């Protein structure tokens, strides 16, 4: 990271630094500070990206893009939100922009049933499992067709179990707007699926 100096902070101190301190050290040119930010947040960022694109390769590329953008914009990180929220905000924007630019990614999201990861279905009859799988595939496909903010809100709420306030922080909006988005997302899903 650019900066005039390289503060004398030991590796042990670096590891103990909180996110805001790491950002400051990063801006001051402390080598390794940004690596630590990546190490701490890579899983969360990757999971978020994966949720949007549903394949490892693109999730990995998008995650890298998120961190690169974070690095470029680190000076704009104000510290009034948590670094996680800030990274999520970048992540949501990067994912939605990528999906807008490459709609083909949406096609990848709906995996054929046979390719879906194994779920323990012992005790479930074959027809039941088939119905559940089909239903899940339709729901996923419908989520992929939601308007951008509704999709982002739904994913953060149901997949990441983020609070409405956290989602509002990520999207830079109000809690009321998040709830309205969530409400409309569920309503639209109902219309797309045609039943419940």
């Amino acid at each position, binding site marked *: 990271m650019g900066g005039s100096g390289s503060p004398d902070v030991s590796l042990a101190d670096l590891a103990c630094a909180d996110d805001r301190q790491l950002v400051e050290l990063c801006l001051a040119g402390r080598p390794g500070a940004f690596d630590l930010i990546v190490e701490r947040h*890579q899983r969360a960022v990757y999971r978020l990206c994966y949720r949007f694109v549903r394949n*490892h390769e693109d999730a990995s590329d998008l995650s890298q893009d998120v961190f690169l953008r974070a*690095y470029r914009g680190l000076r704009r990180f104000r510290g009034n939100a948590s670094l996680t929220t800030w990274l999520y905000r970048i992540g949501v924007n990067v994912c939605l922009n990528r999906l807008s630019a490459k709609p083909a990614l949406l096609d990848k999201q709906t995996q054929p049933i046979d390719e879906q990861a194994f779920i323990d279905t012992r005790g479930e009859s074959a027809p039941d499992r088939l119905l559940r799988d089909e239903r899940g595939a339709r729901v*996923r496909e419908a989520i992929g067709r939601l308007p951008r903010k509704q999709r982002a809100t739904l994913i953060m709420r149901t997949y990441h179990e983020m609070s409405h306030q956290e989602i509002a922080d990520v999207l830079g909006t109000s809690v009321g707007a998040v709830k309205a988005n969530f409400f409309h997302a*569920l309503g639209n899903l109902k219309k797309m699926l045609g039943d419940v």
Partner: protein
Amino acid sequence: MSLKPHLSDADLVDLAEGTRPESSAPHLASCEACRRQLADLRAMLADVSITAREDVAADAEPSPLFWDRFQQRVSSAVAAESERGARSRLVGGFSGWRMLVPAATLAALVIAVTINSRVTMPVPPEDVPGVPRAELLSDSLPDDASLQLVADLTSSVDSSAEAEPGLAAHGGAEHAVSHLSAGELRELQRLLQAELANSGA
């Protein structure tokens, strides 16, 4: 019939998620539309939540090796970004010169030609090895402001560099003129017009 307004989107979401009890919304008891909307919302939410839980449970965590490799990838990308940033800052410092040198050189040449066609030029002295032609020119015409400008503008041009067979050195007049972008050409045109206006041509 209910006289109270219907429940808002946010109210319905809170009720569907169970973050507030139905008892806090007495309107529900008297409004069939809101009850139906809440029931639909709950059903859809349950459906999506089941799918989400299944997806999360089915997500295979990438191999531990992936994270090391990922960190290295990000680290390399960030290092390349830093390097690019440093280079662009360095180049950025010269970007004005990059625009100015070819534009000024061409402007000087055009002005020189224009003036040359109007003024009876004294015979310039022969090239003196090691001394740029511009200096000789300025020495020979010290009182002419426009020619002084030409001399100033061209004094940094090393004409010998372009003389090498097939090569127009970077930064040289020939290379500069033959490698102008559309933006540089526009800027050059503007400079030329300004210079010609100044010289009264």
